[in-house]
C-alpha cells in the first residue's frame, strides 16, 4: 500500500519538487487546509500580501527578475477575482505564473455557495490553461502539468482551482516525471534553410535594423549575451521594445533606444526607412507599429518568435522563424561564422550611408527637454537616479503612465531581468507589489519602483508587506498631482479639458511612509535632489520618496495616433514642432 497524502500535502510536495522557494498569498476559508499544511514545509516560504492583486504582481516581479515561475495562493471567490488583473497582466507580458486557488467543496459547486465563483470560467481567457481538480488522484499530475504549461513555449499564467474537500482527501503522490526546462527546445520549428535565408537577407541589406523584444529576456540571460554577439558581429543598429530593455546595453553606440509611441526619433525613423527588419522576440504591438498600413513600407521583414500565432498576427512578414530566441541566434551565429567569416568587414561599407542617416536623426536629440533650476523636471529626476545608481546592480520596476515612459527613455539598462514594467495590459499599481517580489528574489540588491503618485495609490497597501518582511524597496514617486499621461492626452487631443485627471486630496507621502513604519523623504528642488536620493540609497529600510516634479511636463517625443513612424512630434525644445491636427489626433 503506497503512502497516502492529503490534497494539501500533495500541493506542497509538488511545490517542493518544482523547486519553489517562495509563494505569495492571502488565506481564506477555501484554502485553509493548504495554509494549515504550510508549517510542515520549511523550504517553501510564504509572503503574506495585503491584497490578492498584490500577490499576483509580486509573483510577476519575482518571475521576471529571476527567470523562475512565480507562485501565488489565493482563496475562492473574491480571492480569485482579485487575482484576475495580475493574471491578465502576466498573460499579456508572457510571465510564467502558477496561481493556486481554493474553491468551495465539490458538492457545493454551482449552488452559489459562500465565496463561490466560477474561477476557471472567469480566468479562462486570461490564462494559458486552467484546471478545476475534482478528483484527488489527478491533483499531483495537474500541479506538475501547470508548471510545465506556465514555463514552456511562450510563458504565461496558469491556474489550478482546488475545492476544499479535495484538499482534505487522501491519495498517493505521483512524482514529477521529467524535468521541464524553461522554454524547452521542443518549440523549435525552423529549418537550416530559413537560417540560410536570413543570412542571405542580412548580407544583401543596406539599411538593416534589429527590433527586439521581451522574448529575448524570456529566453534566458544567455539569449541576451548571444544577441549582443550577433549585433556586434553584424554591425547593424538595434532598437528594443519597452519589454526588451536590458537585452542590449542601453549605452552602446549601436543601440538606438526604445522604439514606438514614445520611442526615440532615430529608432522610429530607422524602422520606417529600413530595408531589412529583423524582429527577435517582439510581437508588432500597436504601440510599436502605429498605423499598420504605413508601417515600415520598404522593408523585408523577418520574425523570430517562439509562438507560431505571433507570426502574421498584426504585420505580414517575409520570413518567419518559429523557435526559441537562444537557439535561433545560436544557429544564426554559427552559420554566419561559417559562410561569411568576413561579414562585418564587407558589411561596414554597405551600411555606412545608413549609419550616417541614423547619426543625422540622432543629432535631433529627441529625448532632450528644457531644464529648470526652480522645479524638478521629471526627466532630470530619472537621469539623476540613473547616475547615482548605475554602478550598483539595480532592479527597476514601474507603474504605468508618463513616469514609466520617462524611466524607459532615460534609465539605461545593461542587463536583462533588471526592468519590470507592465507593458501589454498597462496596469497602474503594478510596480510597488512587483518591487516586493523582486526584492524577495534578490534580497541583497537595490530595488526601485519608479512610480507616479496616482498609480502607486492603487496598491499602496503592499508597503505593509514590505515592512513585515524587511524588504528595503524604494518607491520613487514622480509626483505631479495629475494622472500625467491622461492629462497629456487631454491637453493634446481634448482641448485641455482636464476631466477628472487632477488628484485633489493626495496624502502626505512622507507621513504615509511613517504610518506604514518605513522612511519618508521629499525633494522639492533640483538643488536638493541628489542629496535626497543618496539619503534614500543609504537607507536600508523601505522608503517612499516623494519627488515633487513639474506638473505640466509632457512626455516627448511621440508618434501621434494615425501617423506612421516618420511623423513624430518632438518636444518643446525642438522649434519646428508640428501641431497635431485633423487625422493625427486619432492616433495619439
Amino acid at each position, binding site marked *: 500500500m503506497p503512502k497516502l497524502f492529503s490534497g494539501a500535502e500533495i500541493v506542497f510536495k509538488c511545490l517542493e519538487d518544482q523547486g519553489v522557494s517562495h509563494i505569495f498569498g492571502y488565506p481564506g476559508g477555501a484554502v485553509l487546509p493548504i495554509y494549515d499544511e504550510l508549517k510542515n514545509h520549511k523550504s517553501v516560504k510564504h509572503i503574506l500580501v495585503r491584497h490578492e492583486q498584490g500577490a499576483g504582481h509580486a509573483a510577476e516581479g519575482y518571475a521576471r527578475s529571476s527567470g523562475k515561475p512565480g507562485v501565488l495562493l489565493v482563496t475562492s471567490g473574491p480571492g480569485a477575482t482579485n487575482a484576475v488583473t495580475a493574471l491578465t497582466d502576466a498573460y499579456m507580458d508572457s510571465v510564467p505564473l502558477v496561481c493556486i486557488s481554493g474553491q468551495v467543496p465539490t458538492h457545493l459547486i454551482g449552488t452559489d455557495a459562500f465565496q463561490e465563483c466560477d474561477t*476557471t*470560467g472567469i480566468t*479562462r*481567457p486570461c490564462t*494559458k*490553461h486552467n484546471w*478545476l481538480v*475534482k478528483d484527488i488522484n489527478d491533483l499531483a499530475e495537474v500541479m506538475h502539468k501547470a508548471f510545465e*504549461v506556465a514555463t514552456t*513555449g511562450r510563458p504565461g499564467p496558469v491556474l489550478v482551482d482546488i475545492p476544499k474537500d479535495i484538499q482534505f482527501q487522501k491519495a498517493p503522490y505521483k512524482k514529477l516525471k521529467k524535468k521541464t526546462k524553461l522554454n524547452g527546445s521542443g518549440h523549435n520549428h525552423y529549418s537550416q534553410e530559413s537560417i540560410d535565408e536570413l543570412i542571405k537577407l542580412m548580407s544583401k541589406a543596406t539599411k538593416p535594423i534589429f527590433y527586439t523584444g521581451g522574448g529575448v529576456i524570456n529566453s534566458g540571460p544567455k539569449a541576451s549575451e548571444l544577441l549582443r554577439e550577433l549585433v556586434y558581429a553584424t554591425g547593424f543598429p538595434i532598437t528594443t521594445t519597452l519589454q526588451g530593455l536590458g537585452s542590449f546595453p542601453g549605452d552602446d553606440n549601436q543601440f538606438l533606444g526604445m522604439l514606438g509611441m514614445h520611442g526615440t526619433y532615430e529608432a522610429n525613423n530607422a524602422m520606417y526607412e529600413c530595408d531589412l527588419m529583423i524582429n527577435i522576440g517582439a510581437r508588432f504591438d*500597436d504601440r510599436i*507599429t*502605429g*498605423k*499598420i*498600413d504605413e508601417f515600415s513600407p520598404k522593408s523585408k521583414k523577418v520574425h523570430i518568435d517562439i*509562438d*507560431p*500565432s505571433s*507570426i*502574421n*498576427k498584426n504585420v*505580414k512578414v517575409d520570413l518567419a522563424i518559429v523557435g526559441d530566441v537562444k537557439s535561433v541566434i545560436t544557429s544564426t551565429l554559427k552559420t554566419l561564422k561559417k559562410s561569411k567569416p568576413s561579414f562585418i568587414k564587407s558589411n561596414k561599407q554597405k551600411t555606412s550611408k545608413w549609419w550616417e542617416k541614423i547619426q543625422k536623426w540622432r543629432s535631433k536629440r529627441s529625448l532632450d527637454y528644457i531644464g529648470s533650476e526652480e522645479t524638478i523636471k521629471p526627466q532630470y529626476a530619472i537621469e539623476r537616479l540613473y547616475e547615482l545608481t548605475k554602478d550598483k546592480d539595480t532592479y527597476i520596476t514601474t507603474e504605468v503612465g508618463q513616469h514609466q515612459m520617462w524611466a524607459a527613455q532615460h534609465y539605461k539598462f545593461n542587463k536583462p531581468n533588471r526592468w519590470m514594467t507592465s507593458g501589454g495590459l498597462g496596469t497602474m499599481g503594478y510596480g510597488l507589489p512587483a518591487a516586493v517580489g523582486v526584492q524577495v528574489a534578490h534580497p541583497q540588491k537595490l530595488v526601485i519602483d519608479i512610480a507616479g503618485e496616482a498609480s502607486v495609490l492603487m496598491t499602496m497597501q503592499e508597503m505593509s508587506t514590505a515592512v513585515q518582511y524587511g524588504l528595503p524597496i524604494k518607491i520613487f514617486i514622480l509626483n505631479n498631482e495629475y494622472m500625467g499621461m491622461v492629462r497629456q*492626452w487631454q491637453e493634446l*487631443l*481634448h482641448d485641455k479639458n482636464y476631466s477628472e485627471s487632477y488628484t485633489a486630496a493626495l496624502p502626505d507621502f512622507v507621513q504615509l511612509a511613517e504610518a506604514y513604519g518605513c522612511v519618508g523623504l521629499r525633494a522639492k528642488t533640483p538643488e536638493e535632489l541628489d542629496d535626497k536620493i543618496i539619503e534614500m540609497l543609504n537607507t536600508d529600510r523601505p522608503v517612499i520618496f516623494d519627488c515633487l516634479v513639474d506638473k505640466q511636463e509632457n512626455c516627448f517625443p511621440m508618434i501621434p*495616433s*494615425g501617423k506612421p513612424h516618420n511623423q513624430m512630434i518632438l518636444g518643446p525644445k525642438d522649434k519646428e514642432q508640428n501641431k497635431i491636427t*485633423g*487625422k493625427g*489626433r*486619432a*492616433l*495619439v
Partner: protein
Amino acid sequence: MAKSKSAYSVAGKKEKLDTHIIVVWVDNEAGVLARVVGLFSGRGYNIESLAVAEIDQKLNISRITIVTTGTPQVIDQIKLQLKKLVPVHKVADFKREDKNVIFKEMALFKIVGNSTKIEKAFKACKKHDAVILDSTKKSKVIQITALRREIDNMAKNLKKFGLISVSRTGAVAMTRGDKVFK
C-alpha cells in the same frame, strides 16, 4: 474621415472574407467547448455553425466542426490560436469551395396541415434524402440532409406547405477518398 481622438490607430482597409470549415480534435473534458468557443468570441472571430460530439470513447476524443468566415490572415490566426489550447490535438481547415471535402447538415421539419400540403412538402424534400420520422393525420416530421444554403431555401419554400418548426445541426465535414487528415 471624422476627427478621431482615440489613443489607438484607425482601422485599415477591409479585406474579402472567405468561408472556411475548421475541424478541431480535442480531449473530451469539462470546459473544452467553452475554451474553443471563448477563443472565437474573445478575439472577435465569427461562428456560423458548430457541431460537436465525442467520436472516440476509448481515447476520449471529441470532434468539433466550426463554420467560420474571415480574411486569410484571420483564418490563419484561428488555426494557430486553436493549436495553442492545451486539450487540442489537431486542427484541420477546409475552404467551403473545396471539392475534395464533403459537407453535410441535417435538418428536421415539422409540417402541419391537410394531407395534400404535407404530401407536397415531402415531395419538395425528396431531392435531399428525405426521411419521414413521425407521421399523424395532421402532421409529419421530415428529416433531410443537405448543404446549408439548400436547407435555408427549403425552410423558406416549405412555409407555404405548413412548416411550423425547424431544427437543424451545424455542418459536419469529411474528406473524400481514402485519405484522412493527420
